[in-house]
């Protein structure tokens, strides 16, 4: 079984090598090759997941990666319920997106390169999910970051794309500093990085250290999962091709932070403070990102902010201690958000790269199928039963309340309302109303190779929640499954009537959709929209300008950092102080030489005088010594 697991993880890497090295020759077939290896991976994942569902665990060290002193880091993989779920989600969604990309990327320059990168990404992602120790996880963690970098910068001839890629990498790297420090503390206290060594004896940690470790690890997660202080890279990451946004910046990579927190559940369980910080940051991010999504006109950026917001929900789930809810939302979100991005991609494809919603409208006639799946996905994310988003979001909010965090619950509900609003604002803006498409553009439905994955994902978005989230035989399947690995950490505080909670979230969702409908569909909608904007002008401006976070970061960190480095450290400290100091030492030697040079008259008889005077002095000195 362990070799099956290895094969499953390595299969995308093989695809990457083939496409990467022989891309010149595989040119047209690159997409098929890439998808095939992903398909193999997915096919191999099925028996593995079944194996895990049966309650088995695989934990196997393939070889010793680093042995230094007493530290022994193996290269090992682990299959348990948590990673099995990730395995399923990652291989399935990536498989779908690979197929979609065959159509979407067709005819693009560097077709093979794209699939090589994409396969590499999946390989890194699987390594992240399946690693049986923190360092193997870290390889994947950084690996996906790197793949994200090259894929965002895929259109590297555009400066914005290149900049966005770099911004993403550097920002996540800032988070990784925290992650690294967390790992260092773990090594210091446990002398190992293997999960099986750490978690059983996690209780030896002093609470203070547990809090530090959890916060440090979570700081890593804020970078990778685009949470509050470090989320700024994700909207810019939309410069990448749409399948990349769907795969990396919606379905898989950005949720790595959630997975990591859930994986570290035994540590988080030791630190209520750390967990509370996770949940609070999650709630704040969920709300904050939603406000930014409210007013945007860029199709993909709205989805990006919505992703940040949804990951905020997952963070609430794992932060309050109900790890299964976060993971559940991760799974459903992977489906509907990938679907959203892919259908946005289809729109973009049809519109020849235009993403501004003000230039769309009325597209439902031109591309009915895309419109349909988009509405399905939007309903799912808005939390309308019986679609998948409803179950997962409801569980998160319910658990948050029951585990004693009413404020977070409240924020969550408000955010759910906003989510429903901005999603349907987007849908109405794009697909309904009058056509504002510029002259000369003829939007058309996407080809079948793109539509099939859309429909598969749409079915997933509809049924996944119901399959895993409805109570059967006295327990919720996903709760049972995930809790095998990461059980709920904290005891229940409140007993709440669950049906009341369900009604509240449905009302929030429906209300959001209704407000969106009122704002965009009726004839008088523009009038009341402009009244609204005028009345709440400051608030609107804040939202529209994204709270100036990028600008603040720029002024506070980036530019001072650059200027101090260039103007002060390089030009002053290095050139004027250190180097000039060194040169001055040389100059002093030169001056001394000049002083001595006066003696060098150039007349040979003068030299003869000096020689004889020297002889005299030496003789005299010797005489003095023997006297």
């Amino acid at each position, binding site marked *: 079984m362990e070799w099956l697991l290895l094969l499953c993880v390595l299969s995308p890497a093989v695809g990457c090598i083939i496409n990467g090295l022989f891309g010149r020759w595989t040119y047209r077939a690159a997409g098929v090759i890439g998808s095939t290896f992903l398909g193999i991976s997915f096919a191999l994942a099925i028996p593995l997941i079944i194996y895990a569902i049966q309650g088995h665990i695989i934990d196997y060290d393939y070889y010793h990666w680093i042995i230094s002193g007493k530290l022994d880091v193996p290269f090992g993989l682990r299959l348990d319920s948590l990673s099995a779920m990730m395995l399923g989600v990652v291989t399935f969604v990536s498989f779908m997106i690979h197929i979609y990309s065959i159509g979407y990327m067709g005819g693009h320059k560097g077709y093979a390169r794209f699939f090589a990168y994409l396969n590499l990404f999946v390989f890194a992602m699987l390594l992240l999910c399946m690693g049986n120790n923190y360092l193997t996880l870290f390889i994947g963690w950084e690996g996906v970051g790197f793949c994200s970098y090259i894929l965002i910068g895929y259109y590297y001839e555009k400066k914005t794309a290149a900049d966005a890629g770099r911004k993403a990498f550097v920002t996540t790297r800032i988070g990784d500093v925290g992650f690294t420090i967390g790992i260092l503390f773990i090594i210091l206290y446990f002398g190992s990085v293997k999960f099986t060594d750490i978690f059983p004896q996690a209780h030896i940690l002093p609470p203070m250290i547990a809090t530090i470790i959890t916060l440090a690890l979570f700081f890593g997660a804020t970078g990778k999962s685009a949470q509050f202080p470090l989320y700024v890279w994700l909207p810019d990451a939309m410069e990448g091709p749409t399948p990349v946004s769907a795969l990396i910046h919606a379905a898989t990579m950005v949720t790595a932070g959630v997975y990591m927190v859930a994986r570290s559940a035994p540590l988080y369980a030791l630190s209520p403070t750390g967990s509370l910080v996770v949940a609070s940051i999650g709630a704040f991010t969920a709300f904050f990102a939603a406000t930014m999504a409210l007013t945007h006109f860029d199709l993909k950026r709205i989805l990006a902010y919505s992703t940040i917001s949804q990951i905020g929900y997952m963070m609430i789930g794992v932060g309050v201690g109900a790890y299964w809810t976060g993971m559940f939302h991760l799974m459903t979100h992977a489906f509907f958000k990938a679907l959203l991005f892919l259908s946005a991609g289809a729109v973009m494809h049809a519109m020849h790269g235009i993403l501004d919603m003000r230039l769309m409208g009325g597209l439902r006639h031109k591309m009915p199928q895309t419109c349909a799946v988009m509405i399905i996905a939007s309903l799912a994310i808005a939390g309308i039963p019986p679609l998948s988003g409803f179950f997962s979001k409801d569980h998160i909010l319910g658990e948050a309340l029951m585990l004693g965090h009413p404020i977070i619950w409240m924020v969550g509900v408000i955010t759910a309302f906003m989510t429903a609003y901005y999603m349907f604002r987007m849908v109405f803006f794009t697909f309904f109303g009058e056509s504002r498409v510029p002259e000369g553009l003829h939007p058309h439905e996407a080809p079948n190779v793109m539509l099939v994955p859309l429909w598969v994902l749409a079915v997933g978005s509809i049924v996944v929640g119901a399959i895993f989230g409805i109570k059967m035989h006295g327990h919720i399947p996903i709760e049972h499954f995930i809790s095998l690995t990461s059980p709920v950490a904290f005891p229940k505080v409140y007993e709440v009537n669950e049906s009341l909670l369900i009604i509240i979230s449905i009302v929030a969702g429906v209300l959001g959709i209704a407000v969106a409908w009122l704002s965009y569909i009726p004839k008088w909608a523009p009038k009341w929209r402009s009244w609204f904007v005028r009345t709440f002008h400051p608030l609107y401006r804040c939202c529209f300008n994204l709270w100036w976070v990028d600008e603040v970061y720029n002024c506070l960190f980036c530019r001072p950092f650059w200027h101090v480095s260039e103007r002060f450290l390089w030009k002053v400290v290095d050139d004027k102080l250190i180097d000039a100091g060194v040169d001055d030492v040389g100059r002093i030697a030169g001056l001394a030489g000049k002083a001595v040079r006066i003696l060098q008259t150039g007349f040979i008889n003068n030299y003869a005088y000096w020689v*004889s005077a020297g002889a005299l002095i030496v003789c005299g000195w010797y005489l003095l010594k023997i006297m």
Partner: protein
Amino acid sequence: MTGIEACVFAIVSLMAIVGALGVVFCRNPYHSALWMVFSFVGIAGLFALLQAYFLTALQIIVYAGAIVVMIAFVMMTIDFRKVRGLSKFVPQWLWGLIISFGILIDLFILTSKMKIDVSQAGKNLAIAGSNTKALGMELFTSYLFPFEMVAVILLVALIGVVVLTKRGIK
């Protein structure tokens, strides 16, 4: 030192010193060259007193004969007036005198402090009555390598002189 030896010593040393003074203080460089021969003959006499008979011959043949002649020849290739006109001393001549006398005094004091074991004086300088043989034995056994090196030095000097004086060599 017997009386006759002392007498000879006085004469030859006087020759050497007077010759040297003549070299240094004569206005005409040709006269200097002649005084030099005089001085070298005196030194050769000193060698004879010191039982270095081979070196006596060497001194007279090589120095008084060859080297002085060489210097004189070279001087003859050069404009006579220019060579003769340089009878003045250098401007710092006083310093030269002071330094030289200083060295002289230094060396005198050194001599007075020196103690040499003279028990072997005058011995081992000849094999079977031949100083030349003794010198030859020493030179070609213990000092063979330095001797060859000296030969190389002479060769180098030879080449150097040719290179320096030949016109038009790049």
